[in-house]
C-alpha cells in the first residue's frame, strides 16, 4: 500500500488509542478517593464556604454527565479549569510544558549523542577493554536512581563547590523574562548544566546499548568488507557506512524516548525545582486537581503515541528499503 494510506491507517489507530487513553484517564481520576477541596482551602475557611465550592465544581454530578461534558470540552480544545487555581488547563500546560521540553530535549540530545558515539565506538572495537568499560558505565548510569544522583549533584556542585545554582531555571530575583528570552542568557544555561548532566547520565545507557548491538550486526556485513577493499579508511567506514546503517533501529528508539521525555522527568524536576510539566502533574495528582492532571496526562499520551507514529514514518524515510 502507498505511504499515504499507511499513514492514514496509522493515524486512525492513533485516534482510537488516544480516545481509549482519554476515557481511561477520565474514569481513573473520578474513582480517586478524597475531596478535591480539602487541599485548597486553608484552615481559615469554614464549612459553609466549602459546601458551596463543592457544588460549583460540579463534582457531585453523575459520572456519565461529567464524562459527556468532558468529551465535548476536549473536542473543542478546552480541557477544563483547574480546581486549584481556576486557570484553564491549557494555560497551565502552556506554562509548564515548554520548560520541560527545553530541559528534556537538551538532555535527550546530549544523552543520545554521547550514547550513540560510545555505542559506535563499543560496537567497532569489539572485545576491547574499552568496550567493556563503556558498557559498564552505561549500565551504572541507568541503575543509579536519577533523583538520588540529582540530590548528590546539587550538594556537591551546588552547595559545597558552589559552581552551579541549586534550584530553578533562573537566578533568584532575575526572573520575569519569557522562556524564549531566558534561553539566550548565559544564566539560564548555568541552571541547565546540572539537570542536563544528571538526566544525560541516566538516559545515556539505552541508546548506547541499542547502537552497540546494531553496530555488531552491521560490522559483520559484507559491504563493510567491500568498503575496506575499496580502500576506504577505517574511520570513514565506521561513521559513513557502519554507523549510518546501525542508526536505523536507534532512530525508532530515539523517537519513542523523545515521546516519553516530553513528559518530563518528575523526580528530577522536583529535586531541581524545575518548573516542568512532570512536577506539575504529580502536584496535581497529590492535590486531587482532576482537570489539570487529566489534561497533562492527555497531552503526555498524545505526545508519546504521536512519537511512536513519527518513529515509524521517520524509519521509512531513513531506510530506503522500507516500502509501505
Amino acid at each position, binding site marked *: 500500500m502507498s505511504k499515504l494510506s499507511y499513514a492514514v491507517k496509522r493515524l486512525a489507530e492513533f485516534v482510537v488509542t488516544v480516545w481509549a487513553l482519554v476515557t481511561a484517564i477520565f474514569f481513573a481520576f473520578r474513582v480517586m478517593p478524597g475531596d478535591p477541596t480539602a487541599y485548597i482551602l486553608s484552615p481559615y475557611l469554614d464549612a459553609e464556604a466549602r459546601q458551596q465550592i463543592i457544588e460549583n465544581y460540579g463534582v457531585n454530578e453523575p459520572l456519565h454527565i461529567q464524562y459527556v461534558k468532558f468529551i465535548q470540552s476536549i473536542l473543542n480544545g478546552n480541557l477544563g479549569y483547574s480546581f486549584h487555581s481556576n486557570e484553564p488547563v491549557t494555560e497551565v500546560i502552556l506554562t509548564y510544558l515548554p520548560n520541560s521540553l527545553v530541559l528534556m530535549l537538551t538532555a535527550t540530545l546530549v544523552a543520545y549523542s554521547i550514547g550513540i558515539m560510545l555505542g559506535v565506538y563499543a560496537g567497532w572495537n*569489539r572485545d576491547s577493554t574499552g568496550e567493556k568499560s563503556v558498557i559498564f558505565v552505561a549500565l551504572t548510569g541507568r541503575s543509579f536512581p536519577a533523583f538520588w544522583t540529582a540530590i548528590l549533584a546539587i550538594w556537591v556542585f551546588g552547595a559545597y563547590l558552589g559552581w552551579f545554582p541549586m534550584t530553578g531555571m533562573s537566578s533568584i530575583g532575575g526572573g520575569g523574562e519569557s522562556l524564549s528570552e531566558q534561553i539566550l542568557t548565559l544564566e539560564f544555561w548555568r541552571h541547565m548544566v546540572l539537570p542536563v548532566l544528571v538526566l544525560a547520565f541516566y538516559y545515556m545507557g539505552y541508546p548506547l546499548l541499542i547502537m552497540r548491538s546494531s553496530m555488531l550486526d552491521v560490522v559483520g*556485513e*559484507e*559491504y563493510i*568488507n*567491500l*568498503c*575496506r*577493499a*575499496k*580502500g*576506504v*579508511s577505517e574511520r570513514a567506514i565506521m561513521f559513513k*557506512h557502519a554507523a*549510518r*546503517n546501525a542508526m536505523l533501529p536507534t532512530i525508532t528508539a530515539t523517537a519513542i524516548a523523545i515521546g516519553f521525555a516530553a513528559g518530563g522527568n518528575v523526580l528530577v524536576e522536583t529535586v531541581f525545582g524545575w518548573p516542568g510539566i512532570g512536577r506539575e502533574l504529580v502536584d496535581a495528582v497529590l492535590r486531587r486537581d482532576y482537570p489539570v492532571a487529566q489534561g497533562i496526562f492527555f497531552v503526555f499520551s498524545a505526545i508519546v503515541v504521536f512519537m511512536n507514529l513519527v518513529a515509524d514514518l521517520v524509519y521509512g524515510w*531513513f*531506510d*530506503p*528499503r522500507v516500502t509501505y
Partner: protein
Amino acid sequence: MLQVNDLNVNYESNEGTVRAVDGVTIELNEGENLGIVGESGCGKSTLAKAILGVLPSNGYVDAGSIEFRGTDLASLPSSEQREYRWEEISMIPQSAMNALDPVYTIREQIIEAVDIHRPDESTPGEIVDEMFRLVGLDPNRADQYPHQFSGGMRQRAMIAMSLALDPALILADEPTTALDVIMQDQILKRISSIQDDIDSSMLIITHDVAVVAETCDRVAVMYAGEIVEQGTVDQIFGKAYHPYTLGLQNAFPNVTEPDQDLISIPGYPPNLADPPTGCRFADRCPMATEECEQESPSLEQIDAVNGDHLSACHHSDRIDTELRPKAEQAETWSGGVTQ
C-alpha cells in the same frame, strides 16, 4: 605480475589458531587468468582476502610474501596497502546483494571508490555511466538503491564497480555462485568480453570447475589450505595428476554425458585447527599409503608432462596406471584402490 610464495594465513578463534592457508605459492602473469578451485572452507577466499589485505580482525598473514609487480603487499603498512586496493587490485564479491551498502545508491558507492584514489577526478559520474554501459546496464539506473536491482543486475553493477579504476588485477571470489545458471553464463561471457577490452588479469576463485574451465588460462587446485595441483586448464582438466582433482571432476555433471551418475568423495576435509600429519587428503584418498600419512608431499613437476604441471602427491606417477581408469566408478572412492 603477482607472485605469492609460501604464504601462511592464521585465524585466532576460541578453539585455538587455525591455519587457513598453509605454504601457498602461486603466480599470475600480466593478462593471464588464474582459477583457484576447491571445496568451500579450503582457504581460497582467505587467500583472496590476504592478497587484498582485507582479512577479518582475527586473521593475519603469518609468513610468506605477496609480491605484486615487485612490491610485497603483505609487508606494507595498511595506509600504503590501501592505495593499492581497488586502484591496482579490485574484487568482485560472491553475492553483490550484501556487498552493496543498502542505504546508498550504486552511483554514490562507485564514486566513493573513485574519489579516494583520484580526488582530482572532475567527472566521476561519467566513469560510472561508462562502466554501466560496459556491463550492459542502463546508466541512469545507477541512481537507484541496491535492493531495486535483480540478482544478475547487481552482479553486473559489482563488476562495473570493480572496473571503475581499471585495475591491473581483479579478484573474483565466487562471482557467479549466487546466480542461476542462465545468469551465470551471461555474466561469464560479459567478464571474458570485458577482459579483452581492458587487458587486466583475473584471479577467479570458485568451487565450480566449469566456471574455471571457461574463463581461465591456468588453474590451481586447493585442498585444506594447500595447493595440491597446478597447471594449464587443458592439463588439469585433460589429465589431472592428483587424486583429489580427479575426484573433484567426478562431482560435476558433464553436459556431454547426461546419464553419468555423480560420485562424491566420502569423508570431510580435515579440521585446520590441528591438521593431520602428512598429506591432508590421505584419509580420503583411495591410493593413500603409510608414506602419505607420515610425510606431506611437496609440489613437484610431473615429468610425464611437458610444460609446468605440478602436483603434490607421492604417487603421482601411479595415477595413470591405477587410478585414472577406475576414477569414474563409485566403489573406487568408497572401497579404496590399493591396500
